[in-house]
């Protein structure tokens, strides 16, 4: 599903290149649950952003579902992105001026889903996440864990094939973090959604099936979870 070949990313500043990623080659199959780990500044988030098409690599090839992303035009890329990728952030990034239900509905608006279907899908997701009672609240009226649930619900409502999560539990207390990770695991196992997360936590990484260890922009280790346990 995802093929990275020799991905490089650097910023040139006054002729000095500062590398973020070097020679990253990896392949991620449908249904995997991958954790990207490494110290601060290793390039984890950049890699995730490249996977999520929010940034472009300086060099290298990125194939997503058989399409070469680097050569696609913007419209096709957005099309692909809208239909297959959902993002979850550490800081949730909900729109403060929108209610829970409106936040969840937002991605469907951009997918041009009809009004009736939007309603039913939002209702469906709210139901699944036990948030029907909270649907008219605003983000600042919710706890961090609840906000992140809304964030995940928003990522899921567009029925993506991949969820990219950037430290999804970084701002949460441990109990809420466990709840979120359980949810990810369930989504991965029951619905076959590919999940790629960036995390600092060994515990969180333990929920996944595979870990990519990044150090100074280079993949140092690529291990399956069973091996480490």
């Amino acid at each position, binding site marked *: 599903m995802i093929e990275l070949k020799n991905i490089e990313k650097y910023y040139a500043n006054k002729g000095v290149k500062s590398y973020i990623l070097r020679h990253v080659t990896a392949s991620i199959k449908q249904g995997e649950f991958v954790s990207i780990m490494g110290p601060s500044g290793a390039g984890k988030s950049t890699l995730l952003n490249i996977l999520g098409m929010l940034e472009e690599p300086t060099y290298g090839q990125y194939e997503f579902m058989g399409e070469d992303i680097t050569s696609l035009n913007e419209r096709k890329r957005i099309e692909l992105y809208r239909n297959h990728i959902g*993002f979850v952030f550490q800081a949730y*990034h909900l729109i403060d001026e929108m209610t829970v239900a409106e936040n969840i509905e937002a991605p469907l608006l951009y997918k041009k889903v009809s009004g009736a279907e939007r309603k039913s899908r939002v209702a469906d997701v709210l139901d699944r996440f036990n948030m029907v009672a909270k649907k008219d609240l605003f983000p600042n009226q919710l706890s961090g864990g609840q906000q992140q649930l809304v964030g995940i619900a*928003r990522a899921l409502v567009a029925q993506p094939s991949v969820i990219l999560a950037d430290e999804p539990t970084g701002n949460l207390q441990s109990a809420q973090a466990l709840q979120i990770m359980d949810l990810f695991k369930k989504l991965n196992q029951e619905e076959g959604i590919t999940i790629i997360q960036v995390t600092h936590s060994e515990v969180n990484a333990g929920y996944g099936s595979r870990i990519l260890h990044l150090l100074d922009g280079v993949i140092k280790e690529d291990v399956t979870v069973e091996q480490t346990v």
Partner: protein
Amino acid sequence: MFRLNLKIALRNLWKYKGYTFINIAGLSIGLAACLLIFIFLRYQLSFDKGYENEDRIYRIVSSWTYPSEGEFYSKGVPRPMAAAIRNDFPQVQQVAAVQESGGIIKVPATAGSPEIKEASSVYYVEPQFFDILKINWLEGKPHQALSMPNTVTLSKKTADKYFGRWQNAVGRNIRFANRTDLKVTGVFEDFPDNSSFPFNVVISYLTYKDESLHNWQSVSSSSECYVLLKKGTDASALKAPMLKLIDKYYEKGSVGKEHHYFQPLSDIHYSEKFGNFTNKVMPESQIIGLIVIGAFLLLTACINFINLATAQAVSRSKEVGIRKVMGSMRKQLIWQFLSETALITIIALLLASALTELALPGMRNLFSGDISFSLFGHPVIFIFMILLVLAVSFLAGFYPAMIVSGFSPALAIKNKISASSTGALGLRRALVVLQFAITSVLIVGTLVVINQMSFMRSKSLGFDTKAIALVNVPSDSLSQLKFNTLKEKMLHINGVKGVSFCNAAPSSNNNNTSSFKYNSTKDENFQLSVKSTDEDYINTFSLKLIAGRTLSKTDTVRETIVNETLLKKLNITNPNEILGKFIETQGRKMPVVGVIKDFNNFSLHDKIEPTALFSFKPVYNLMAVKMEPGQLLPAMKAIESQWNNTFPDYVYSSGFMDDQIASFYETERVMSVLFKVFAGVVIFISFIGLFGLISFIATQRTKEIAIRKVLGASTLELVKMLNSSFLWMVLIANLIAWPVSYIFVSKWLEGFEYRAPLSIWPFMVAMLLSIGITLITVSLRSYKAANTNPIDALKYE
């Protein structure tokens, strides 16, 4: 501390070059417009000021009320007025008659300087005038210099011109109108440019001869009368004695009811009704209009500044936080930001001064006034500039300073200040709507003025105006003898198709109206406009004869041709019916021999008047020459040389019919230029204001935009989202602007008797234009906002 703050302010200005640029650009254009208006108003308000006893100086003016046509005004009074006031008004300390006239002045050649010959205005003035309006005399005293016939006094510059040095002038002779020798008996200091008295050649009143010198029934606007009231006399208390005077001197039973007013000196430059010798009038409504426009421009410039400054406030929040942590008081921060605003204002003002200097020649041209941007000549301009800096700094700087200095230091240091904590967006929206409403009003106004101007240019006036030259001719009896040969010579010039002598062109601001009788012994209750023309007038101006025949060749009043409007007013439907009937006016009775189609007597402001044409050679002062358009230039040259051969003692002057018509609309031309300029300035300022608001909103919604983008919104969708609220604002602004501009515009058009129909187009164009401007401005910024990488906005939360 101050130096450090200044350094930081300059660095900040440099860091946000874009903001600084549009801020200073908008502010300096607003300030420049204010400065220009101030300089112009200062000049206009300085007219006729600084005379001794100025609050007791009055001019006597006249009015007539006609039962069917309302009140007519004239700055002139019957010529015996001054003597009657002197006799009958004990409240008056001094009276003086002033008579305007003009003619050729010849200064004989002397050793070293050639003969001077020029056409000039002259004023016959009673010496008492200079007791009323006290000016400095360089040589001679008014009471000696002007109490004998055939004496003249000159202004310093005229004396310099005529005799090399003014010290040489007294005792010399000049010749006026080729018949009167005048002895120079005095030289006075030049009247300033901002004076309603363009007196350069002042002849003693006793020199003045006129058949109406003792006639109360005839009034020329060239005969003025000035008075100095005794101390403590109230001008309003003079009403009753004036009625008594009217009763005493006027013949009873005339149709128009005469009245005379005392007009204060301070009103003379500003009264459109009466006018003055200089023909430069600044109506009060225009002064108020300019003040309003200036205040508005200043306010919009300040609004922009507020919009931009608050949009930028977030970027200063960290500095504010740290300063507070270091112990700065809020008051100190307010002062810091206020002085930053003052710095920007001063920079903008310097730029504005340069712009003002650049725009002044255009302004001088437009208003033909001698205005200058002289700080030392008029220190009040300097004071105004200081006040302007203070006012703008405070108006524009106070609100942003309050907001920025109010940030909580704990939040500010953690970068937790978001754009939404920088004050009410609604207020700013309302201000932008207001700006756009006024922009739309100005656009509609501009379009309507332009439309009316082109309507007036293309509207047929009922006669031919193309390629007709109006050449002045001397009207003394000696010159009149040469008219016939001159006409012959003219007709022989290649390209000349017709020549006619007359006292006025068909459309002219020099119309004579008088009461008349039609087939009866009683005056009609309306006035007749009369023109004295020779037999070729109708052909030269291509007037259309609809009944009867043209005038026959004659030098005296014998028969008349009238226009359709007269027939309508007399309720005559068949033009042939009036032929052979008699009209009696100005004491002369004549049969009607023809009827012509209506033509416009004056500008399109005025209705076509009932008109009669008849021959009367003694008043001809104009020769109309119709030419082939292709041979205009050579023909004009030949006309001038023939004219000079015929009248060697006079000075040639001529103009074109089209130019004369254009001159009727001078006010409208000035207005349309002003409208265009101010519409441009306001559009530019609104453009900047809009840019400020969209910048603010884009900053405020950065996170939202990034999230939406991550959710899959395309750049185009985001641009649309950001733009839509602005389109609504513009639509609302236009809805407000439509009725307002409709009221203004239709009021203005009411001033024209003949006007272009008011269509919906100016309104539509104004709306489309403002929408277009909005879309372009807003898209510039919203595209940038929508196109930024969402990661940059979301990374550091």
